[in-house]
């Protein structure tokens, strides 16, 4: 198993939540102090470099118009990391391509990071969380259709080397597509895609890309990976290796269980501070109709019920948080591994909110030294 360190690069110095009704989309940026923000950017880049030194891989994501994540352009921060690191794989998970007006621009940026890093880019494509709809300024309906057209155009731009082609699709039009640079890796950087619905998991499985699940816990993750494998079996495609499956959780390893829990509780800031009104959590057409109906009836999809009043115990129980001493954390990850039929990538959300630099580094060190060696033996490295 491979482990990837990521942090949302949050800006956590916010007023009392009573003063605002949403941390996403509409929180005025007067609450953001660019001088503190600059220090935070440098701190987070330092932490990614430390992760590399500890033998971990690096993951970056992006969100828009939110204090929970100050990377509105994953390509920009990854450009810096491509220069400041030497050996770690660099995962962007990912580019919200259904929201982007110009997929060719994404193809260019990703090719640039790939060359800049001498072929260390792992390129993720995501649909984006519901709160990205307003900020991303794109229609929430028929998103996956647009997503796959953007994907097709990007892959064609990466793999065309004999001069321009034209694209006149349903959602995108582009003349004389002929990107410079072309990607460093052949035929292109490995592709990762996040999935939640059965259909998305099947679509990713069909293509054999890495499928990633975020905070979906034991059963949610098992379902997604299951749909991926099932689709491949239906098409009589080769069985997917563990390195086709990734799972993201909040992870904090301490010397004792109590120390691990204390770190994890600070990571839970990400869940606790996610104050978002309904118009941004449920844009029409984002969720399948049946899910919307279930929500109207008071149901919450999967683990989202647990996110409304987050508590460490229940979150650990369902596998959204891995925390404790090294043995405990190893046991929790192993349980997830066995439950979902194996996975090859652990995406570690290892910094959030008020977890300071020393605490973040301590958690990473404990993981890298005490847990990671055992995880590597769980499955073949990619």
């Amino acid at each position, binding site marked *: 198993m491979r482990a990837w360190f990521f942090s949302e690069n949050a800006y956590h110095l916010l007023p009392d939540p009573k003063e605002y009704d949403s941390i996403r*989309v*509409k929180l005025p940026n007067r609450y953001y102090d660019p001088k503190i923000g600059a220090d935070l950017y440098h701190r987070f880049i330092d932490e990614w470099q430390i992760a590399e030194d500890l033998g971990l891989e690096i993951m970056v994501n992006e969100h828009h118009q939110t204090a929970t994540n100050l990377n509105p352009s994953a390509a920009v921060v990854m450009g810096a990391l491509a220069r400041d690191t030497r050996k770690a794989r660099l995962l962007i998970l990912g580019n919200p391509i259904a929201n982007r007006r110009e997929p060719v621009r994404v193809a260019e940026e990703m090719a640039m990071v790939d060359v800049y890093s001498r072929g260390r880019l792992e390129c993720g494509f995501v649909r984006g969380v519901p709160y990205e*709809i*307003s900020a991303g*300024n794109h*229609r*929430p*309906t*028929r998103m996956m259709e647009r997503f796959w057209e953007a994907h097709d155009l990007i892959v064609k731009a990466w793999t065309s080397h004999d001069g321009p082609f034209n694209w006149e699709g349903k959602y995108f039009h582009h003349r004389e597509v002929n990107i410079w640079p072309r990607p460093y890796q052949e035929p292109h950087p490995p592709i990762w895609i996040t999935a939640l619905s059965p259909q998305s998991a099947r679509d990713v499985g069909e293509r054999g890309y890495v499928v990633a699940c975020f905070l979906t816990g034991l059963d949610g993750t098992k379902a997604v990976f299951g749909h991926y494998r099932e689709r491949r079996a239906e098409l009589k495609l080769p069985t997917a290796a563990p390195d086709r499956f990734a799972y993201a959780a909040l992870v904090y390893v301490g010397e004792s269980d109590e120390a691990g829990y204390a770190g994890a509780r600070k990571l839970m800031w990400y869940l606790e501070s996610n104050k978002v*009104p*309904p*118009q*941004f959590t449920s*844009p*029409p*057409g984002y969720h399948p*109709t*049946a899910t*919307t*109906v279930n929500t*109207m*009836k*008071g149901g919450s999809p999967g683990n989202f019920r647990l996110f409304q009043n987050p508590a460490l115990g229940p979150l650990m129980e369902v596998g959204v948080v891995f925390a404790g001493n090294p043995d405990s954390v190893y046991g929790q990850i192993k349980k997830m591994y066995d439950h979902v039929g194996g996975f090859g990538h652990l995406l570690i959300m290892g910094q959030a909110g008020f977890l300071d630099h020393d605490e973040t580094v301590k958690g990473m060190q404990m993981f890298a030294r005490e847990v990671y060696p055992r995880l590597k033996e769980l499955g073949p490295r990619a």
Partner: protein
Amino acid sequence: MTSNLSEHRLRVRGVDLEVVERGQGPTILWLHGEEGVDPGCPVLDLMAAHGRVLAPSHPGFGHSPDAAAIDTIDDLAYLYLDLLAEHDRREVVVIGCSLGGWIAAEMAVKCTDRLARLVLVGPLGIKVGDRETRDIPDIFALHPDEVRRLLYRDPSRATVDYAALTDDQLTVLARNREATALYAWEPYFHNPKLRQRLHRITVPTLLVWGADDRFVGAGYYGAAYRDAIPGARLLTIDGAGHFPHVEAPAALAACIRRFLDGHDG
């Protein structure tokens, strides 16, 4: 291309539509807005006293299936012009509410050959203000309670008790919201070109506005619409917000009846 007319379904050039049909006589095409068609809405029966009311659910709304090739108001305008042509319906009265008014206006700027009269009830679809002023509040960025307050004179009557509804009713509510987003997301509830084309509407046109419409006002938006359509009249109805057919159906029906009888209103 043939169409199969049944009590609850219409098929127009391969597009399936759920439809409410009432009454006898000349065709009255009722084009619903964001709220969808409520078969129990009294205004449908009131209008059925004057002709054959045909109230389709636009693709994606109600129980009308999604249609892969249809995703704009322009598509809907052509769809309903095709519907009128396929049965050679003439002297048709087209009534459209809110988003449905936008569809009706788009039909009329394309072709009025089959139309006798046009009634636009709180129609959306045009751009009046400058680039930094929304004419129409953003229902996708406002809290649902605030959206209700803007749309209804009496918001309490629009409060829905989800627990009291069947799965089918909830599904219709969800689909209506999804389809609204499909057609009206961007440009938001308008076609930048529509206003400059409204001069092409050459049939008698009545604009009706709820006097208490907090969503889009008659004095600003309604007046701009009226001024762009030659000879159009603008009337307001007391006791109604943005959906007069829901809050004041009898007054709306009376107002339309006078217009159909040849009075200016």
